[in-house]
Structure formats: structure tokens, C-alpha cells
């Protein structure tokens, strides 16, 4: 008797390598430069936001958010978070790092979150652990090329 296990068949195509062959993924939204929304959460001025807009990305910047359910957060697929000076309402002690943890807890792999900083060293083991909760981290003074690379990486990972 022919016995075909559809469940096992589908699971074979869940890894990143074969995900495009997974029938369930045929109907999942694919994010590209044209339809991805990028959010910067930073209390400082970030000229790279304008540079990315000129490159054709849809980018928004807010000084801070009060809640991980805020509309700007919900609408964004890639979120860049400053380590210092944001997230006070959500994580008064750990600020940006704590905010990242809350974002990843709430949204999992549906949002790609990058934590950036200008600090040369991280103060405590707790902060290092929170840094590792982000999908990636980078230097705040990186140039637009580095941000572009990060965005392309994010586009391949957002589920």
C-alpha cells in the first residue's frame, strides 16, 4: 500500500536551504526593497536614515516608543534600535537592550532587530546577554554600505 507521510514531506522543506520549495511558503509574503518597512528607534540624529531613503527604502525614525504594540513597530519588518537612550518606558534599567528583548519576545522571527551602539565596551554580563538576543548588532557610526548589507541580510531572514 502506498504510504506517503505529508507531514514528513513538508518538514523536509522547512530549512532555509529548501524553504522556497516548501508549498506553505509559496503564499508567504516575500520582503524586498520595495515593500519592506524599516524603523529606527534612536533619540539622536541619524543621517543614515535619509541616505537609506535616497537609496529607495521606506524608512521611518522615531525618538522612542512607549509600547512594543505601537503602530510604527507593528508596521516595520526591520528595526534598528539604539542601545542607549531609548526604551525607557519599556525597560528603564536596560533601555535599548531591554527593548530588543521585548521586541524579540513579542514578534520572534517576524521582525529582524538590530541593536547598534557607539560604546566601546558593554558594561555587564546581563547587557551582553541582552545584546545577543538581537538578530545582529553593529556600530552606530557605520556607513550606509554597512546598513545596506544588514538590510539585505534581514530580507533573507524575515519569516
Amino acid at each position, binding site marked *: 500500500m502506498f504510504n506517503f507521510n505529508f507531514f514528513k514531506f513538508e518538514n523536509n522543506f522547512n530549512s532555509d536551504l529548501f524553504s522556497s520549495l516548501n508549498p506553505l511558503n509559496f503564499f508567504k509574503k516575500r520582503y524586498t526593497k520595495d515593500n519592506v518597512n524599516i524603523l529606527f528607534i534612536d*533619540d*539622536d*540624529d*541619524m*543621517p*543614515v536614515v*535619509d*541616505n537609506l531613503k*535616497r537609496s529607495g527604502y521606506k524608512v521611518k525614525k522615531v*525618538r*522612542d516608543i512607549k509600547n512594543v504594540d505601537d503602530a510604527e513597530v507593528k508596521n516595520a519588518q526591520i528595526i534598528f534600535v539604539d542601545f*542607549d*537612550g*531609548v526604551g*525607557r*518606558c519599556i525597560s*528603564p534599567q536596560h533601555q535599548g537592550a531591554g527593548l530588543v528583548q521585548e521586541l524579540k519576545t513579542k514578534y520572534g522571527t517576524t521582525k529582524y532587530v538590530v541593536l547598534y*551602539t*557607539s*560604546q*566601546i*565596551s558593554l*558594561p555587564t*554580563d546581563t547587557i551582553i546577554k541582552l545584546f545577543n538576543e538581537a538578530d545582529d548588532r553593529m*556600530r*552606530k*557610526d*557605520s*556607513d*550606509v554600505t554597512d546598513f545596506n548589507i544588514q538590510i539585505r541580510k534581514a530580507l533573507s531572514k524575515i519569516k
Partner: protein
Amino acid sequence: MIYFQVKNSNGNIIAGNMHDFLRCKEFEKNKNYFNYRNGEGIKSVEENFEDCSIWFVVEGRDDLLKSAKLFLKTLNVYKIAALDVWRYHKTQIDSYSHTITTIQGQIRQKIEGFANDDKFYGDSYSDSIESISEHIKSDIMSAADLICYTHKRINDLRAHLLGVEVVHAGEHYKVNFDKVSLKRALLNQCTPFLCQFEEKSVNLRYFFDEKYEIDVDKNMFSLIMYNFFSNAVKYTKPNSELRFQYKQGCLDISMISLKIEKSEIGEIFNEGVRGKHSLETSGKGVGLFVLKKALELMGKDNMYIDPEYSRGDNEYVENHFKFIF
């Protein structure tokens, strides 16, 4: 005699007096050592922590060398003090480098937005100049925006560097007094902040003319006003006014801004202290501290927030900041 040395994880010496220990080089190779005989002795201990190490030597101290308990107590005191010194220095270094890294990043990103790196390439410096000149001609408004932006960031950098100098080495700063027009000096200092005031629709109004002169150190005055305007931009209510009045030697700057509780008025000039209503806005509680330090250096530290206006339950009140110049 007690000697100690604190090193960071890179092996750089942060603090200590070990250079006074004559046998320092001899003990470098073996820092954990004890020898006590006929009333003469030496004990050396090294302990490693997460991001620093402490080396502790006691020489010729009978009481410490005879009593292990006393030695441990003394070592612990040095450990705690040394760790605190190390953490304080580390925080200062982090904060210092964080600000400079951020500002240079902002300038770099802004330049990048105006012209890619390849616009600066050339076989010679004059070729580079030629290339950039052509680019400027093609987009003069963006070039002007870049210059204004860089001007603001250079002001930020200058204020940061001066602030560090005032806080950590103020006693070495030589004050030079000059007579300046108060109004012109204020206009000069607030120019870099005009863009931010405009974004919040805050108008600046002067109720005195340029004839009034004051004696100030220009660097300290610019530092004072930089820190003042940095705070004003953050805490002033949108769609309001900043008013400058000068009468009988007193500059009164009033604004509708976040309420400062009467109990906080004296405290918020201390390092790291922020008013309770400001905690949702970013800040480190350093601006007013530096402002006060700069005033003290000039010998004009009678600046105060008039407590008469800190009344009511509104989030925003009319605050009056009075400087006696």
C-alpha cells in the same frame, strides 16, 4: 608599606603606587608569594576579575603579615576601592568615547549622503577639490545643509571636550574675561539649535537690545549656553516661546517647560541628577552640572531657577532661569 596596582584586561595600568615598590620587577614573574622571618616579611597577592586584575603587596607591616585575618580585611578594602575606581574610570572612558564616536559617525553619514567617497577621489588634492566643487555647484542647497549640520556637530563636539575639561581638570583652566554684547553672544550660541526649536515651533524673543555688555570668558559662556539650550530644546513645550530679559545685571530666560519640583531645584545641578518629570526623555543629568561648573570657574555661580513658578499640577509650567552676569 602597602602597594597596589589595577590593570585592565589589556594589561594597561589604571591606578596604583606599585612603581614605588623597589622589588616590583622581581615580583612581576611571581605575584603570589609570602615570606616572613625574624620580624621581616613580604606578601604579594594577585586577583583577577572579569575585566581587570589587582596586584597587592604588603612589605614590612608586622600587623598585617602576622594576622591572616587582618591581611584579608585590608586586601578586601583595597579590592573594593580599586574596583570602584576602575568602574568609575571605565564609565567615564565609555561615555567620552561614546559621544565622540556618535558625533563623528553623524558627520560621516551626513557627508556620505551628500557625496559618495568616489567624489573625493583624484590624482591630486586639486583634482579632489575640482570634483567636489562640481558636485557642490550641482546641489548648492544640500551643500549648505551639510555645512550647517557640520557646524552644529562641531559645536556638540567642542562642548563635549570643554565639558570634560571643566569637570575633570577645571583647576588648570585659565579664565580670560572679555567684554561682549550679551544679546549677540546669546544669538551666536543659540544658532546651532534653531533647527530643533523650529521643529517644535518654539519662538525665541529678546526683550533687550545689543547695547548691554557683560564680562565673561567666551569659552565658558559658550559651554554654559550650549548646555542650557540643549536642555531647553528637549524640555520646552512645543508651540511656545523662549523669552530673554535683562535687567539690573540679571539675565532671566523664561519658557514653558517640564515642571521642576521645588524640592529638586537645588539638586538638579548635581552630577547624574534629573528631575522626576524628565525621566521619560533621554539624558544623563550632566548638562546642568557642567553648566554650574563653568559658572563656578568664572566666579559667577549665582545662577538659579526661580522657585516661585514651580506650582500646580500641570506637566508644563513657566520656568525662569536667572543668571547674574
